[in-house]
């Protein structure tokens, strides 16, 4: 379904270079933010609000790409498309994939940090 890597090492290295001492703060911020966003996705789905789902997925997608989590970002994009096309039946499956992928990414990022 998704051939992209979990982490874009090159992008992360660049971020490290840019953020310097702030890098770990950035990672923590991202992780905290992402958890909130995933809650938001659940809420939207529960409310069957496809528009809200699309918007939230779109937003989350952006930050995933920025941080260098391309596979997670791609999942978000799929969810966004489903929301746009009002095809909510397939949504729970993709949301689950997102949850799983996020766990993976979180672990890898924390390792990267050390």
């Amino acid at each position: 379904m998704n051939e992209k890597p979990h982490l874009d090492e090159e992008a992360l290295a660049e971020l490290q270079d840019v953020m310097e001492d702030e890098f770990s703060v950035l990672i923590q911020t991202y992780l905290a933010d992402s958890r909130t966003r995933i809650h938001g996705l659940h809420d939207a789905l529960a409310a069957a609000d496809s528009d809200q789902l699309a918007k939230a997925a779109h937003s989350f997608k952006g930050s995933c790409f920025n941080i260098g989590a391309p596979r997670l970002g791609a999942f978000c994009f799929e969810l966004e498309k489903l929301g746009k096309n009002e095809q909510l039946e397939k949504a729970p499956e993709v949301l689950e994939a997102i949850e799983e992928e996020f766990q993976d990414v979180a672990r890898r990022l924390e390792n990267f940090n050390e």
Partner: protein
Amino acid sequence: MNILIAEDNDSDRMILATLIRRLGHHVQEASDGLEAVSSFVKFQPDLVLLDALMPRMDGMEAARRIKALGGVRFIPLIFLTSLSNATEQARCLDAGGDDFLVKPYNRVILEAKINAFNRMRSLHQAVSEQRDHIRRQNERMLEEQRAARRVFDNVAHTGCLNAPNIRYHASPLSVFNGDVLFASRRPGGGTLLFMGDFTGHGLPAAIGAMPIAEVFYGMAAKGFGAADILREINRKLCSILPTGMFCCGVLLEADSKQSAIRVWNGGLPDGWLVRKNGDRVAIPSRHLPLGVLPPDRFVASMDILDALSGDRVVVMTDGFPESRDDQGAPFGETGVRRVLAGLQPEEHPFDALMEHLQRFTGQPAPADDITLCSLEVVTGSVAPEIFEKTPASSLSGPGNWHCVYEIRERTLADFNPLPLLLHICMEVPGLRRKSGEIYTLLSELYNNALEHGVLALSSEWKSSAKGFSLYYQERKRRLSETEGHYIRFTLDHESRPDAGRLRIRCEDSGQGFDAESQGARAPAGTGPGNGYAGRGLEILKRMTQELNIYGAGNCVEIVYDWEFPNHGLQSS
């Protein structure tokens, strides 16, 4: 630069802010649209980076408000978006965005865009400053022009324009349109009127007016005739105006004693003589405008029109016929002709023309470019002393002197000695107030000597209005045959305590005339039509202490006494 970032995603915002700070700029952060707008007001950034989708107020709406708040300043606005399709991106730009930046943020592109927009912003600012500078310069220039215009007005529309027989409309203070209108009484009676239209607009057009005004009024006061004034105006304009600039003009000379008007039109639209009986005579442009031909080629010859008391002459610059209605059609010379053809018996042509033009253009107030003037012929006795421009001199002058001035043969045709003779008399301070009377005396003596003495013209010809034109034609012809003739003036002045006695003797080489029989034919007190010479002698008798006629009648001498007014007595 000061840069405002509005991005709701915390981690994205962190990344962007850090990237930009590392480029050396100051960063202000906002996390939604509402905060973005208020931060914009408080922080006054030079550049704004705005996420397209945000809670509370989305990016598009925030963009619109921020652009509106920016006003005339150029604040570049860059949308942050992961929107990938073209329609969405176009919407960003329509909402006021100047560009967009795609996530993930690329450091290199971000820096390049910020720099590019900074350059654009600087350029915009430079242009705005230049525009403001130009606007200020322009206002200063307009102010200077207004001041110059006030000076110009003291010069351009003056003289005896407020005389009862003159009606005029000239452009108001707001516009320099190069039109001038001068009017002056002549010493000895009559009016000179000059209307001019300088090429171009504004200052260059107006500048020519001042020296011309000096020439006109100076020469008119000294008693110079219209042709001399025209020649001098032309000479002056040739010397001061660059090639390609000139003055279209009309000069009218109305003599209050004679039933005639002399006219010269060089480049202005047709003027019109509107007789009291309704007849109309056109006064078309027959000459090149003033300032074109060099003095040796300039033609100052004037046309003579018979004119009786109550007849009116109307002259205008091209602004009048060129006035347009709301369709853009001009009033035209045909319009003028139509109005004059349809005049009612008691209707004044000036009023009729102004009224019709106003109706035609539909404008309540006349346009700025209109210069229209009418002069009514007023015949009768010598006009009262009204001088606007006689310079007052405080120098003392010669009290006892004697001078003989003789002109001969061809000079009789080419030269008018009156201004010079008047000038000599005006050197006497006590006579300066009397320039009109002195001029009249000199002029009566001279014309008598020239026309009846040397040229042997009969004054009976002038008893009819038509006769005047014939008279002048014959006069012109006989002036070319003056071999052996002369006119000699002998002036003598004797000063007395606060008074003086001026003696003027005028001799001519003619056959003389029978003063007795002339006097008998024209008893004192009778009106015009009794022969010019008779009337002339009456005037001389009335104005002087003594009048003596010697020889065969070709030598006339007058004695003129004067006193300073403090002593109560008026002279003569």
